[in-house]
């Protein structure tokens, strides 16, 4: 009986905060743009998600801020995901950080865009330890180097693999001919 009441209250609460969430999200982002104007290079709101493009010098500082400030409290790094826009694009590589807050339940994406000649970004393993393996995978697949990473080496492909497999110019079937020896 009390569980039913609790459940109804929870649903009502969620329904009440539903429109507020968008307002709250926009308010938080405006607050962020005010305090960290140089770190927030662009804000994109699409498909119900917020993406902030961050210049790579400011990524660690912004991540620390987002993790520790109580209104944000993005304490869980869900995923770091690389993407290749294609060999003719400049900047070529993107690194996306997906953040989640276990207390506020909101999500955010941070994006760092990198050019091919200088595909380096400071590591965020000092902010969230889970970044370790995600950054290793991004390095393995795209060749993006993470400065300051404690153990930057390939994770999925063998240690002596040549090339970075998820780049658009890496062929689907690889380079080596199929051979049993």
């Amino acid at each position: 009986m009390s569980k039913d009441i609790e459940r109804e209250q929870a649903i009502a609460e969620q329904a009440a905060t539903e429109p507020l969430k968008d307002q709250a999200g926009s308010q938080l982002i405006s607050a962020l743009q005010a305090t960290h104007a140089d770190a927030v290079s662009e804000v994109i709101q699409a498909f119900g998600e917020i993406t902030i493009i961050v210049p790579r010098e400011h990524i660690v500082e912004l991540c620390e801020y987002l993790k520790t400030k109580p209104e944000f409290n993005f304490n869980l790094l869900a995923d770091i995901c690389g993407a290749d826009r294609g060999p003719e694009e400049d900047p070529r590589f993107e690194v996306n950080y997906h953040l989640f807050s276990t207390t506020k339940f909101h999500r955010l994406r941070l994006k760092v865009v990198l050019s091919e000649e200088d595909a380096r970004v400071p590591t965020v393993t000092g902010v969230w330890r889970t970044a370790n393996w995600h950054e290793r995978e991004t390095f393995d697949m795209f060749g993006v180097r993470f400065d300051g990473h404690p153990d930057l080496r390939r994770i999925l492909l063998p240690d002596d693999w040549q090339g970075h497999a998820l780049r658009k110019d890496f062929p689907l079937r690889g380079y080596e001919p199929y051979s049993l020896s």
Partner: protein
Amino acid sequence: MSVSSTNIPPQFEVVDQPLDTQMTISMGPQHPSTHGVLRLELVLDGEMVVKCTPDIGYLHTGMEKLFEYKKYQQGIVITDRMDYLNPLGNNLCYVMAVEKLLGIEIPERAQVIRVLMCELQRIASHMVWLGTHALDIGAMTVFFYAFREREKILNLIEAASGGRMTPSYFRIGGLMMDLPAGFERRTQQFIDKFPKAVDEFETLLSGNRIFQTRTQGVGIITADDAIDMGVTGPCLRGSGVAIDVRRTNPYTGYETYDFEIPVEQSCDVWARYVVRMRELRESLKIVRQALGRLKPGPVKADAPKVVLPDREAMKTHMDALIHHFLIVAEGFNVPAGEVYHPIEGSKGELGCYVKSDGGPKPARVHFRGPSFVNLAALPHMSEGEMVADVVAIIGSLDIVLGEIDR
């Protein structure tokens, strides 16, 4: 004795001890208790693990690369093969991410069936976890009982979709086809008998002193460490943090179902066992509610450019034929943009990141596999424990190498 080889990376240090007090051994990749092709490089001091370094990639098949060469609807079959114990969950995650980009609304009946099938799949996945975890610890009977229950669920999934381990039952815009006749009756039979099966598992394991001694106090990870290391799912709920994507970011109508999120405080292997056993009962509750909500209706969205038309319509109407041809031959264009859609898989937060450049093939698809992240916490949990405890801890993490390596 030191081993010199040009190919060993410097991080895998071979400890050269004059009195040979530490030994470096490889657990895996071929090992009955590592739950797949996982290699652990263990540095042991007697029985105690000094350093544990997972070495993964033995099952890497380049699935994320494959997605970029296939149309969106062709990618659904690839998702089955990632976490092969929870294929419907993978399907759902990918399909919902693409639907988010397309902005399609899914009909009520399709949403209810999605919840029903996902919860059945969660129970089936937990049956594998239970059987293999108990088997590793030494309880062989539980393995057979659990897989017998799993067989019933696999029969149900096969009736609906045609596949046991690779169902690909969901489509972008709804389901592959409606449930077959007799499905609801068979599911009801399963629901009626399953609580007794869970009681049997608990009789065999929960009060068993050997199981308790092997699991209590082993593999501790505190809540703060767990969140810092990105651990999600039953492993996080066993450390006292009540986070479940079905509650925090609900999808497919989960906000309308009545279920609890089991949480335990003791942060050890035992806590994760209790959380998953309670999850079995909660999933059963959801299945019961979903069965009660099934009403006749369409199972595919009203989006003729994305969803295949009915076969009869295709054979008789020209526009349906043209749509069918275009969808199959050329695919449909998905608006440019990117989306990260998380769901609560059986192992934790399963997220799908889809980036579209406006064409019929994705520009990038990435899966955030919960097993990948949970495995990174294994060294933290197992350094200082004994080798036999490493086996218990791997079992409690519930890893699937298909999801880790992709």
